């Protein structure tokens, strides 16, 4: 990647975050460079196809797209329209994802394409997640260039984030392969709404997956997310069983998913189905998109969620979007030593040696080194 190309990448976040992408028509681009045959679909009669990438299993007529809006049936062949079509690129601290047990204190080259397979009413990136690829500006960033840009930015990993990597899975798989060859790790930030087969392939290619578990109730998934809970829970179990590093984020939305009963059910399920070592982050909601009528999450609610999860015996329970809170640090569950200190996205002292607490030698699960 030359300097000029990299600078092009650098202004992308401004487009995505500045709200200028959707309001104006995207610049005319040669779409052919972004199109590749999709990996997970079945051909049906009359040139229809069935997408088997996510649990929606959209059946799509010729010239139509599925729910995600980024895959199109063209004459009975299903194509992704977002391979290498990056609409947002940032160099972020890994803590912003958040990953707390995955290369702490490092930078992640973070990219997204347009599209998502759910429509959460609290989406903070709806301008790009709910858009079709041609509605937002994008640049061509093929897998090799992703790895090169990450290395040039002194990033330890690449994060596929902001929108929903499931809908640009082919690109993730190819870019992760290029990154692995270049000695870089890959982390995925996802809603986990994906079918088992593509998920297994994803787990083989990437190193870490953070799942946004939006709630522990189907009602919330139906009314706020436009999806289903069970496939997400199944996906988390699969990720855990296949050995990719997994963390869970639970955005606490006042009045909608913040009952003690729901926190308890979540914590109990995590302990019984995932074990005690999967980190969970209870993060503060801020009003946006279609939920502007709700207040930010009170700190007391987040602390109540943490207390419930702690009481269940989960060992790594964090509070997020509250910079300076003591529950941002990682504590050794054995000796209670602060093994990773954090303030917001900044990392202070790391008291780990070969993945163990320096003080008591307790194993702290995670990926701590390149």
């Amino acid at each position, binding site marked *: 990647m030359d300097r000029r190309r990299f600078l092009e990448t650098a202004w992308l976040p401004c487009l995505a975050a500045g*709200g200028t992408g*959707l*309001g*104006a*028509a*995207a*610049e005319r681009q040669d779409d052919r460079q972004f199109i590749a045959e999709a990996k997970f679909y079945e051909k049906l009669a*009359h*040139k*229809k196809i069935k997408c088997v990438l996510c649990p929606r299993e959209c*059946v799509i*007529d*010729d*010239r*139509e*797209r*599925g*729910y*995600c*809006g980024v895959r199109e049936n063209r004459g009975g062949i299903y194509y992704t329209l977002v391979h290498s079509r990056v609409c947002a690129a940032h160099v972020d601290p890994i803590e912003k994802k958040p990953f707390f047990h995955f290369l702490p204190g490092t930078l992640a080259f973070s990219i997204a394409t347009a599209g998502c397979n759910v*429509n959460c*009413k609290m989406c903070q990136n*709806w301008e790009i997640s*709910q*858009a*079709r690829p*041609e*509605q937002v500006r994008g640049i061509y960033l093929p897998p090799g260039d992703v790895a090169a840009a990450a290395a040039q930015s002194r990033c330890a990993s690449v994060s596929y984030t902001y929108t929903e990597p499931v809908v640009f899975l082919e690109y993730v798989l190819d870019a992760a392969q290029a990154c692995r060859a270049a000695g870089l790790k890959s982390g995925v930030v996802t809603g986990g709404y994906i079918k088992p087969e593509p998920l297994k392939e994803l787990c083989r290619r990437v190193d870490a997956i953070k799942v946004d578990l939006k709630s522990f109730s189907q009602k919330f998934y139906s009314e706020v997310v*436009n999806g289903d809970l069970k496939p997400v829970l199944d996906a988390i179990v699969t990720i855990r069983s296949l050995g990719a590093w997994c963390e869970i984020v639970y955005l606490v939305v006042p009045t909608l998913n913040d009952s003690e009963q729901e926190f308890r059910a979540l914590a109990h399920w995590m302990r019984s189905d995932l074990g005690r070592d999967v980190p969970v982050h209870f993060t503060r909601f801020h009003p946006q*998109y*279609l939920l502007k009528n709700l207040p930010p999450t009170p700190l007391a609610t987040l602390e109540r969620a943490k207390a419930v999860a702690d009481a269940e015996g989960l060992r790594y329970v964090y509070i997020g979007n509250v910079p300076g809170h003591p529950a941002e640090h990682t504590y050794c569950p054995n000796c209670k030593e602060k093994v990773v200190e954090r303030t917001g996205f900044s990392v202070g002292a790391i008291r780990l040696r070969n993945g163990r607490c320096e003080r008591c030698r307790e194993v702290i699960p995670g990926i701590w080194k390149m």
Partner: protein
Amino acid sequence: MSHSPGTSRRQLLRTCAGGVLAGRTLSGQGRTPSSRVVIARDRALRGGGATPDSSRLLKLLDRAVQSCFDTGSAAEAWHKVARPGEVVGLKVNCLAGKGISTHVVLTQAICERLQQAGIPRKDILIWDRLNDDLDSAGFRVSVDRNGIRCVGNDEWGYEEELLVHGSAGSLVCNSLARVCHAVINLPVLKDHSIVGVTLALKNFFGAIHNPNKYHMNAGDPYVADVYMLPPIRDKVRVTICDALSAAYEGGPSYMPQWTWPFNGLMVSRDPVALDYTGWQIIEKKRAEMGMKPLKAEGREPKYIATAADARHRLGTCDPARIEQIEV
């Protein structure tokens, strides 16, 4: 927003402001003063060929519009659709290519009548989702400000402000929100494999940036909620449904084995009444052809009833209140 090369930013903003003002003065006229649905048919419309005869089609159109507006002449009716000074948008439906899209010859006939009603060519805008869709249906994309403009949403983009009603939260295309003062809705009489039928209400999925999000539950309540967005609800003056050819299965794509020559137009100021009537026509044809009703296929268009409910009041789907007229 990228716009026609001859249009300055100032001109564009002036047009936008005009749109807002005109929309206010006519607020309410776009709603449903009458639940009359006119079905105009001409068995000899195509003569011996496949293409509709333009002069016969013009007469058919006049009969239908005159009956819909209940005026003494067709010219009088067209004056009720729009008035000089307004930019009139024609929302065509071109997704399925030439096989089962709004016919160019019908759109031309409407343009001709609008001009005779005092709307200059420069104030007529034909639009749909994509330039490619328009092109594939036989329209010639043009942003020449001196002529009739024909443009896809991909060319002119979308508003930046999110509009919300019920389950729908969308950005509305600039063609509709900023440029048009009045809209003539030109859907096609056809089946839809997910939401049952796609007629007057559903056609405005082509006015928003995220239609793919609204097909769940056979489009209910999404189709009704999208139509409630103010630029749609307030600007549509009349629906002229292209039923020259119709599809009773396989839609929205073109499946020639499931289309039939209906040789007609359906015209109404009540989009719900039109949709209900069109749905019944499709069901009748399906029954004739030995096919299951849409309900049995899990795609009954319940959104039509939702559009008529107390939260929407977009029209009526009560057959006793629909005045169906055949001309």
